[in-house]
C-alpha cells in the first residue's frame, strides 16, 4: 500500500529544521490553486485548507510521496454554517505535522474515508461520526463506538444543548441578586 520504507534505521528520532517550509512548497507545487489556504503556523506545523473533494488526493500525496505515515487525529468541528473535518498527519522522519482542514457543507455532512490509507482512521472516524454525525463514506464499519448503539443524537453538534449554560453560581446570585 505504501511506497515509503518503514524500516526503523531511517527514523532518527530528531526533527529536521526548516522541513515545514519544504513541505509547504511541495504541497503548493502539487496542488496549487486547489489549496484554499496554506501556511506555516509555527515551527514543524503546516496548515492547509481544502475542499472535501480534494481530501483523498492530498492525503495520498502526503503519505506516499512526502512520507507522512502517522495519522494522529481526526477532528470534526461544527461551525454552524458548515462542518470541518480536520486531520493531523505526522511525519516521523522530519518531525513535521500537517493539519488538513477539509470543508463540508452543513446540509450534506459527508466526506470520503481515509481507512484505505491509514488503518488508524478506522476508530478515529467512527468516533467522530458517533459524536458529530459527519458521515465518512466508504468506511467499512461506521457504527457507534463510545455511545450506546440505540443513541439517537450526535452530541457534539452545537444544536445539542447542554443542561445548563453557566455551570457556577455567582456571589451576587448567592446574596439574592440576579
Amino acid at each position, binding site marked *: 500500500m*505504501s511506497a515509503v520504507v*518503514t*524500516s*526503523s534505521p531511517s*527514523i*532518527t*528520532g*530528531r*526533527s529536521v529544521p526548516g522541513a515545514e517550509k519544504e513541505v509547504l512548497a511541495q504541497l503548493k507545487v502539487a496542488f496549487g490553486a486547489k489549496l484554499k489556504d496554506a501556511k506555516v503556523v*509555527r515551527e*514543524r*506545523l503546516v496548515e492547509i485548507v481544502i475542499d472535501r473533494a480534494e481530501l483523498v488526493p492530498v492525503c495520498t500525496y502526503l503519505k506516499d510521496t512526502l512520507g507522512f*505515515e*502517522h*495519522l*494522529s*487525529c481526526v*477532528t470534526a*468541528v*461544527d461551525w454552524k454554517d458548515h462542518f470541518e473535518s*480536520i486531520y*493531523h498527519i505526522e511525519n*516521523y522522519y522530519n*518531525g513535521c*505535522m500537517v*493539519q488538513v482542514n477539509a470543508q463540508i457543507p452543513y446540509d450534506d455532512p459527508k466526506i470520503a474515508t481515509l481507512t484505505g490509507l*491509514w*488503518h*488508524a482512521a*478506522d*476508530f*478515529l472516524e467512527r*468516533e467522530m461520526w458517533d*459524536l458529530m454525525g459527519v458521515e465518512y463514506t466508504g468506511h467499512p464499519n461506521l457504527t*457507534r*463506538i*463510545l*455511545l*450506546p448503539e440505540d443513541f439517537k443524537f450526535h*452530541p*457534539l453538534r452545537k444544536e*445539542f444543548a*447542554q443542561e*445548563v*449554560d*453557566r*455551570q457556577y453560581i455567582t456571589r451576587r446570585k448567592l446574596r439574592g441578586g440576579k
Partner: protein
Amino acid sequence: MTEFWINMGPQHPMTHGLWNMKVQVDGETVTDAKPEIGYLHRGYEKIMEVREFQKNVVLTDRLCYVSSITWSHAYCLAVEKMMGIETPERGQWIRVVALELQRIASHLMWLAAYGPDLGLLTGLLWALRERELFLDLIQLMSGARMNQNYPRVGGVRNDLPDNFEAMCRRSIEHFLEKVDNEYQRVFQQSKVFHMRTEGVGKISAAEAIDWGVTGPNLRACGVNVDLRRLDPYEVYEEIDFEPQVWHDGGAGDSYARFVCRFNELRESCQIILQALEKMPKTGPYRVKAPRRAEGEGYAKTEDSRGEALFYVIGDGDDRPYRVKIRSPVFCTMAATPIMLRGNKLADSVAILGSVDVCVGEMDK
C-alpha cells in the same frame, strides 16, 4: 472445531477498568478479537465547551487518574499556543519535573497491574510501595496525591517548596537502588516472566505506525519516536536523555514493551536529576493568561502511554468553542486484535497488560 466468541470483560481482572475485549477462539487459539469500549464515556469534549479555560484544567486531570499532570499539562500547552503566551523559564522546568514524576508514578502503577496479570503478586506490592515515594513528592509539590490540578494556563500553580530538591534526590536515589536490585530480579531475571512474555503479542513496526500505535508500544517495535525529542516542548531540548527504543531482535512483543517502559523509569529519574541541576533557582513560574481568546492551538506531548494531542479552538469567548482530545490508548486499542491473533487465549492477559490501558482517557 467450531469457533466461538468469549467476552473478556467488562468485569474481568484483566481489564483494569471497564471495557470488554471480545475474543474469538478456535480451541485455545485466538482467531479474532473485537474491543468494545465506551463504558466510561463522560462527554469530556462537550462539558469543556461550557467551562472557562482555567476551569477545564481540573477536568483534564480526571481524564486519566493515573497520569493526571501529563494530561492537564497537554491541555494547558494547547491553550497557551492558542493564546500566544509562553510559560516563564522556571515554570517550564518545574513542569518538566512534575511531568517526569508523574510518568514514573504512572509506569509504576502499570507495573503493579502487570505483575498480578502474570501471577506475580510481589510485583504489585513492591511497585505500589515505591509509587508512594513519588506520590509523596507530587504531594509536596502540588498538595495532592492524585488529581493534582497543578499546571495552569501560563505556568504552574505554585513554586516548588524549599526542601523539594533534597527530598527528590533522596527518593530517587532510594528508588534507583530498588530498580537495579529488586525489580530487576523479580521481573527481568525471572525465567517464568520471560516465558510468559517473550514472543507473544507481536506487532510489526509498519503495522504499528499504520494503526496509530504511539509511545512506549511503538518504541518497542524499534521505531525511534519520542515526542520529547522529535517535537520538543517545554525545555526538553536542553535535557540530555536517551529515548528508550528496543534495538534487539524479536521486536514488538510483550517483553519488548515491558523493557521499554521499565527502562523509562530510570531515564525519567535521570531527567529529573538533570532538571533540578539546570533549573534557574529563582524567577517567575507563571504568567497571567488572558481570559478570552480567539484562534486555534494544538499541542502534542509524550504522555506516559503515547502521543497525547489537544486541539483547542476559541471563538473570542472565555470558553473553548471546541476541544478535541486524542487519546493514545484509544488508537492502540484499535491495534490490539493484531497483537492477539494467533496467540493462546491464556496469553491474551499477558499481551493486553503490556499495552497499559487506561480506560478514563480512552473513553473520554
